[in-house]
């Protein structure tokens, strides 16, 4: 995710100190992976250098955490451009898992159990996400749903591969 653009987007609602930005980011987007202060200040320094933010004041005591920042017109344009640009749809080939299945077949091992192990691991994560959804708010639901749909896609590939194992075994036979 573009941390720079996300911080800019947060600054569009009003100028903030670095620590306020970090807190706002973590609250909305960083539940699983909060930002380090170092990341925030390094990003703000880059945005400042590129003219996307400006310093609006420094509290006594100095230090980067005492500065407040505001978004510039160029920053607003940058956010707009980012929002209008689609993310690259990635073809997520499960290359490692595919390799394991083929190697299991080549070596006469049980390829189905490779898939079974993966299914169990995937379902375990899906259970955790489902529980988190049940206990959480709408933001949790949406974040968990996104992860759940991705895991579901992996599992659909896995089930189809399980049904095609005999065919695959014939094709990879040495």
């Amino acid at each position, binding site marked *: 995710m573009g941390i720079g653009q996300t911080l800019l987007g947060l600054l569009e609602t009003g100028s903030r100190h670095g620590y306020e930005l970090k807190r706002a980011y973590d609250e909305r987007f960083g539940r699983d992976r909060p930002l380090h202060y170092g990341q925030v200040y390094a990003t703000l320094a880059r945005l400042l250098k590129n003219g996307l933010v400006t310093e609006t004041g420094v509290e006594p005591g100095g230090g980067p955490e005492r500065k407040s920042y505001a978004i510039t017109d160029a920053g607003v344009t940058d956010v707009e451009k980012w929002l209008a640009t689609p993310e690259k749809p990635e073809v997520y080939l499960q290359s490692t898992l595919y390799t394991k299945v083929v190697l299991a077949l080549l070596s006469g091992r049980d390829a189905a*159990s490779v898939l*079974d192990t993966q*299914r*169990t691991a995937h*379902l375990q994560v*899906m259970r955790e996400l489902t529980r988190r959804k*049940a206990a959480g708010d709408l933001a949790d639901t949406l974040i968990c749903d996104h992860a*759940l749909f991705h895991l579901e896609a992996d599992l659909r590939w896995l089930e189809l591969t399980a049904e095609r194992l005999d065919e695959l075994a014939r094709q990879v036979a040495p």
Partner: protein
Amino acid sequence: MSLLTATGLCKSFGATEALRGADFAIDTGEIVAIMGPSGSGKSTLLHCLAGIVRPDQGRVAYRERDLVNMSDADRSSLRRSEFGFVFQFGQLVPELSCLENVALPLRLGGMRRKPAEAAAREALDRFELGDLARKRPGEVSGGQGQRVAIARALVTEPKVVFADEPTGALDSLNGERVMGLLLAAAKDVGTAVILVTHDVRVAAYSDREVVVRDGRTPAQVAVP
């Protein structure tokens, strides 16, 4: 000790071998998903566990009682008093109101109309379906009908609920709502749920999964 166990189940329909040595066990209050590809034997396994289908070979025991060799009358009585059922399309009786549908398992168990309908109304209210009490199944939406079916399955406070693709005919949001209600209500009274599904998002509501492949249940994998 497991609540319900099955070992070495085999079942054929004509030349088709639906089950070829399937095993299963569930504890009190546990939620287990039975998964597997279409035609793998999931529903046949569920029906054998519920005493709806008699296996050709193997043993099914509910609290140490042999379900396979039990008389039909005893098995029916056990199903009415200890088991609840939810199917993909609800299978509500179209001629009866939602209230009468929910009261049906109690009436079949010998309860008089008034207390049965009072308990049914309470169950409908618990699922926020009180307004539908007088409506017939044809007059309610698919999601509402499925929630009525869950109320009916749980009205007797069964020890085991058998659910065969309970969200199969619903969209994602209604499916989630139905699963949430089913499992919350089951947890409340310590009911075990056996859930047949091909939907991994539904399976994620379970405590663990049992995979059926070609009529067998391969050793289940434990992931650290």
